[in-house]
């Protein structure tokens, strides 16, 4: 509970930044607030403490997912300050929205009541709608916000409708009560319940950007400021998957035969659409948007695997994906601001201009495409193992096909930066904090790739 309180206080303090004119220190304030929240979060480890009349529980699953979201948000705020800080009059408000959305993410991964799920999804989503439209004078940013808002609220409607139907079937919002009901009645088909599950599934598949509910993703990801896109693609996705897995494992596992077919088909379509469309993208930002769709497809595999492996697999994958994806978006942002293009040409000759940045690009791309010894490889390995354990060998073979399709586009920036010589003499610069942070992200990627036990053993 302390986590949510700390985050909320930070958010409110930030909000007053403009009024009382301490806008300049709000980034620092947010970082301190997030750090405090991370500390509170880790104190909850192994306590399994329920809060708010059993509407939330800080079990280890929630703590782990919460920690990833907060760390990624902290990284993002440091970069946000650098990229937007100087000419942004709404710094305080934006930061407070970001912090609030993290609070939403925490609620989403720790709910034990469907109302809290809805609340968390809404806190996160409404913040996201605003963030997408941050560049007020930019047409595509406006488009992104509008599109996201319309589609998002529509899908939230599905979610809410599903929750209502489930309430109708089980007479409870509480996950344990629903789980009990489902377990007792798993033998006979309850159509009301199944409809509810299906509608919730649609709502959540939209949030994780799985095909065929992915149409908003590329436009929103491209239109929003890159640094915000990084936030959507990492924190947004990880929190949504946290909620997704939690709900379906805790509640609907006994009737998995009813929904696993749907998940399987969706996973296949998502992987293929994401990867094949990403192949044709010129804009790297859009490419990463499609690739994030593909990653959602891989992560859906975890829902099909046995419970004792799935949670850990999806957690590890989230960490690996979050770190590398964050690094990739940040690099694209740096390149975009300094060369004026977000296409692969911007990376040409990067290895000569800035060795560190080129190396970090290579590491994050290798990790995203799942090459050993990076975290991304072990994440995929873990997901594939758990899905094979669940009996989905063929599905894993398709995922493997997708894995090597993805190499083609992930290697584009690497090839540009290492194998081609630059024709312009743009100098790509980084300040020390950024360099250190990006290097830390790369080191984390490699360390987790070599010693995945650090995460899997928890």
């Amino acid at each position, binding site marked *: 509970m302390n986590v949510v309180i700390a985050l909320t206080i930070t958010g409110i303090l930030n909000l007053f930044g403009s009024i009382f004119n301490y806008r300049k220190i709000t980034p620092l304030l947010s970082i301190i607030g997030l750090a405090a929240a991370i500390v509170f979060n880790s104190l909850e480890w192994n306590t399994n403490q329920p809060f708010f009349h059993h509407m939330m529980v800080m079990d280890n699953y929630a703590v782990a997912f919460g920690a990833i979201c907060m760390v990624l948000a902290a990284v993002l705020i440091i970069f946000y300050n650098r990229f937007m800080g100087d000419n942004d009059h709404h710094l305080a408000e934006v930061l407070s929205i970001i912090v609030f959305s993290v609070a939403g993410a925490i609620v989403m991964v720790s709910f034990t009541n469907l109302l809290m799920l809805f609340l968390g999804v809404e806190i996160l989503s409404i913040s996201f709608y605003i963030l997408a439209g941050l560049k007020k004078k930019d047409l595509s940013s406006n488009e992104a916000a509008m599109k996201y808002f319309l589609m998002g609220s529509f899908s939230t409607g599905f979610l809410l409708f599903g929750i209502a139907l489930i309430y109708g079937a089980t007479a409870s919002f509480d996950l344990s009560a629903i789980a009990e009901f489902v377990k007792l009645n798993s033998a006979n088909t309850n159509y009301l319940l199944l409809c509810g599950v299906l509608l919730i599934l649609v709502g959540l598949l939209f949030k994780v950007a799985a095909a065929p509910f992915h149409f908003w993703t590329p436009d929103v990801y491209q239109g929003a400021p890159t640094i915000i896109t990084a936030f959507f693609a990492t924190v947004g996705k990880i929190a949504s998957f946290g909620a997704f897995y939690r709900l379906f494992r805790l509640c609907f596992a006994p009737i998995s035969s009813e929904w696993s077919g749907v998940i399987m088909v969706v996973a296949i379509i998502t992987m293929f659409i994401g990867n094949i469309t990403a192949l044709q993208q010129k804009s790297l930002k859009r490419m990463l948007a499609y690739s994030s769709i593909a990653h959602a497809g891989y992560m859906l595999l975890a829902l099909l695997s046995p419970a004792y492996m799935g949670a*850990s697999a999806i957690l590890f994958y989230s960490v690996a994906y979050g770190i590398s994806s964050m690094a990739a978006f940040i690099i694209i942002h740096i390149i975009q601001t300094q060369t004026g293009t977000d296409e692969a040409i911007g990376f040409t000759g990067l290895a000569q201009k800035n060795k560190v940045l080129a190396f970090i690009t290579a590491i994050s791309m*290798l990790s995203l495409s799942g*090459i*050993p*010894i990076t975290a991304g*490889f072990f994440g995929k*390995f873990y997901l*594939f*193992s758990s899905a*094979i*354990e669940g009996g989905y*060998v063929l599905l*894993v*073979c398709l995922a*493997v*096909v997708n*894995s*090597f399709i993805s*190499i*083609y586009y992930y*290697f584009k920036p690497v*090839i540009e930066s*290492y*194998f*081609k010589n630059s024709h312009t003499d743009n100098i790509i610069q980084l300040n020390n904090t950024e360099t250190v942070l990006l290097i830390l992200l790369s080191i984390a990627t490699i360390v987790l790739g070599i*010693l*995945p*036990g650090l995460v*899997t*053993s928890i």
Partner: protein
Amino acid sequence: MHTLLLLIIPIVFMVIVLFLKGKTAGYVALTSSILSVVVSIIVAIHLHFNGYFDEFNHIWISSFGINFHVGIDGISLILVLLTTFLTPFIILTSLQKETENSSVFYAIILLMQAGMLGAFTAMDSFLFYVSYEVALIPIYFICGLWGGENRIAVTLKFFIYTLAGSLFMLVSIIYLYLQTPGNHSFEITEFYKLNLSSTQQTWIFCGFFLAFAVKIPIFPFHSWQPSTYTTAPTAGTMLLAGIMLKMGLYGLIRFVLPIAPEAVAHWNTLAIILCVCGIIYGSVIAIRQNDLKTLIAFSSLAHVGLIAVGIFSMNIQGIQGAMIQMFNHGVNAVALFFLIDLFERRSGTRLMDKFSGIASVNKKVAVVFAIVMLGSVGLPLTNGFVGEFLLLMGVYQWNMYAALFAGLTIILGAVYMLRLYKNVFFGEISETSKSISSMTMMETIMSYKLIALIIVLGIFPNLLLNLSAPAVTKLLNLIANHSNMTATL
């Protein structure tokens, strides 16, 4: 512990090399590779005379039952020796000319050496997979950064091709892992104990076969090979042809034969037909090549095809022949590429029609080339002969006609190699040939060493055969037991 040392030496030196510049980096890398040679010889002596099996086992990822388990038995030893013996030659060849970013170049070569040694010594299949891939990234960068024209497309194709194959191997490995009893284990020896049904074996066979067929390469999975060999810088081609493709052959022996013997017995007809097609196809295309490097690339396709046939014939002669021929092919390929690089360095071209009459300009190089060529063709008393003889004997026991067609490799090999020799070394002295009038001291020493290897192994093949014999016998017993067991069931 020596095995661990073998892996640590290149990695430690790699880090040192990264901080050095110019040729110093190369000489330090050379020191590292020579140290590896010494350690590998010590391992060989221990294994051969004391029967001492050198291994190192440490828990890596406990929750998955993954261990950092490396060890060297007879089969691994041959390939470890191959890797450690060839790396100094590869580094020396590169030292003959200036390389851009030399520190990175030599560091990458050492990393690759570590990766390949890791794959050859891994006793844990997860470690094998990781090493198999770790060896791929350095070669990708070697070809991409220092390669010739069109390198970007060629290397990307190579990378995706190889990775695609190996990912199916990963699926097979995970599947096998989940079949192991109890807490599951990635130990290769645990995989040997599994009782798989023939359907399961078939799928496992397919997964592994795809990975290794791309790596070896077996026809029709070879299309990455000639272009990559041609484009890669000489060191890269040597690494690829000399050592890396042996990872595929090694994988066949280590994984496919003992884990899925029934499937091999069932599918080896198809595999052997493919290999034989590759042998003939590679040889015929080699006859028409003008670029020397491409010619050797296609000839290599034919040679490794024969080795794969030997392995699939599943008898002692075939596998022992494969063991020794893997070593010999590595030596011969490196020697040939070294000589071609020697030509290219001096004349700036490697097209056959630009050269003629080198024998009159430089007798030394003509003799050296002749010996290497004869080794490659498989003349008695050179190393190639023993290997090809054993391989063909193995195939003959499996099927006479297969041996007949596979034997074409010797005839066709003689055709393209002698054609090459005739065009390049005899006839009128061309302008380009004049540039190859001398050899430096270093080149002479290197050539003599390579020739010594070729002749010594031709006369005393038992040096290698005895090293691998116990392990190969053990492997075949394992397969025999496995099929008996299924027969009694």
